[in-house]
């Protein structure tokens, strides 16, 4: 099983390490493993079954589609990142 890195935004570091390593072959599986290990993250990333409206998911710096992001395949060393889709001043 490939090991991937999950990067979290700074405000969520209080619920986990900023970068979590999990074994997963897809973005959805990596997210499940992340939340199994750190369940306190769940209400901040998801709103019921879907991502919160201003949370975006990236793999290796590329934003994934909001509908199909869970299916994105991952390979060893990939970085899955959750960020807030609000920036600038």
């Amino acid at each position: 099983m490939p090991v991937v890195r999950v990067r979290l935004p700074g405000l969520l570091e209080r619920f986990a390490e900023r970068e979590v390593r999990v074994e997963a072959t897809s973005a959805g599986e990596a997210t499940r493993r992340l939340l199994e290990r750190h369940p306190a993250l769940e209400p901040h990333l998801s709103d019921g079954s879907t991502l919160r409206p201003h949370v975006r998911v990236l793999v290796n710096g590329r934003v994934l589609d909001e509908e199909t992001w869970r299916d994105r395949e991952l390979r060893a060393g990939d970085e899955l990142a959750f960020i807030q889709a609000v920036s600038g001043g």
Partner: protein
Amino acid sequence: MVAVRLLVGTRKGLFVLESDEAREDWTVRGPALEGWAVANTLVDPRVDSRTLAVVGHFVYGPTVHRSSDRGETWTQVEASPAFDGADDRDLDQVWTVAPGARTEPDVLYAGVAEAALFRSADGGEIWTEVVGLQRHESREEWFPGKGGLCVHSIVVHPADPDRIWLGISAVGVLRTDDRGETWEIVNDGLGTIEEAAAGDSDAGSCVHRLVGDPDHPDRLFQQNHLGVYRSRNGGDEWEALDDGLPSTFGFPMAMHPRDPDTLYVLPLESGEVRMVPDGEPAVYRTRDTGDAWERMDRGLPTDSWVTVLRHAMAVDDGDPVGVYVGTTGGDLYHSADEGDSWAELPVTLPRVLGLEAVTVA
């Protein structure tokens, strides 16, 4: 020795100010929960060391946190208020946590937006919705205030856990006598704001803050969008109290902890302007349950065009009682003599959302 602790919830975290009995010199700790909005905190008077905070963020959503070390460190509770997803309601914010009856020290309630009530039976770790509120016949007619459709005030009868009052913007006061299974709107005598007047129900009164009198549980007070009101019969009827007040609008209200005839409000100019009148903040105090109000502004600034939000006023349990006010500009003012005179606390904070003051034994 610390005698008074003031927990200050702000838009960007929680700050803790401490002083000795004289309340002249203050130390400032924080921010805890840095970057998170802390709408309100509760130091539970029934259980030593139980402190809860309602925490939120516009991206990462709302949860409840607890502290057992006087606000120094915080841990998210196991299951914060959340809707079950069976309908399209969004839980935007937890507005407040309130203690249940004295006879049930592990029961707490939480008020949220979109308007709903949650209950915890284990001291705040696990929250479940009191679904009876959603079944009220007027539910479809509820209209949000500017801050959203929110349950912001919860008063539990101190000795009868079945009787609870809620303040909901812009719906009014709802009362249950069966622990939340069924509810009655008790707005008789309150004004209705035009934009919230709906259907045939009694909903549509914009209560801004509801306060109960623990020594006389049938006595309630509220700062409403349209005035300050008193009920002597559990909310069945309300009477306007405006003798001496400069406006009908305002948000916060606090009751003296030992003399329930004494209350404090901070009037603002109109629902359209929402600043202190003439840029001169002033607390108004009554000593007779609201029949007359006196202006208390000695030591408060001029040319200060601020707003004070609904939870941003608190009283401590000292003798004389200390009164605290936090502004949207991040300033804190306090009185160590029950409101007679005021001084600014030595800190400028983010927008102040909620204050909780406790006297430490």
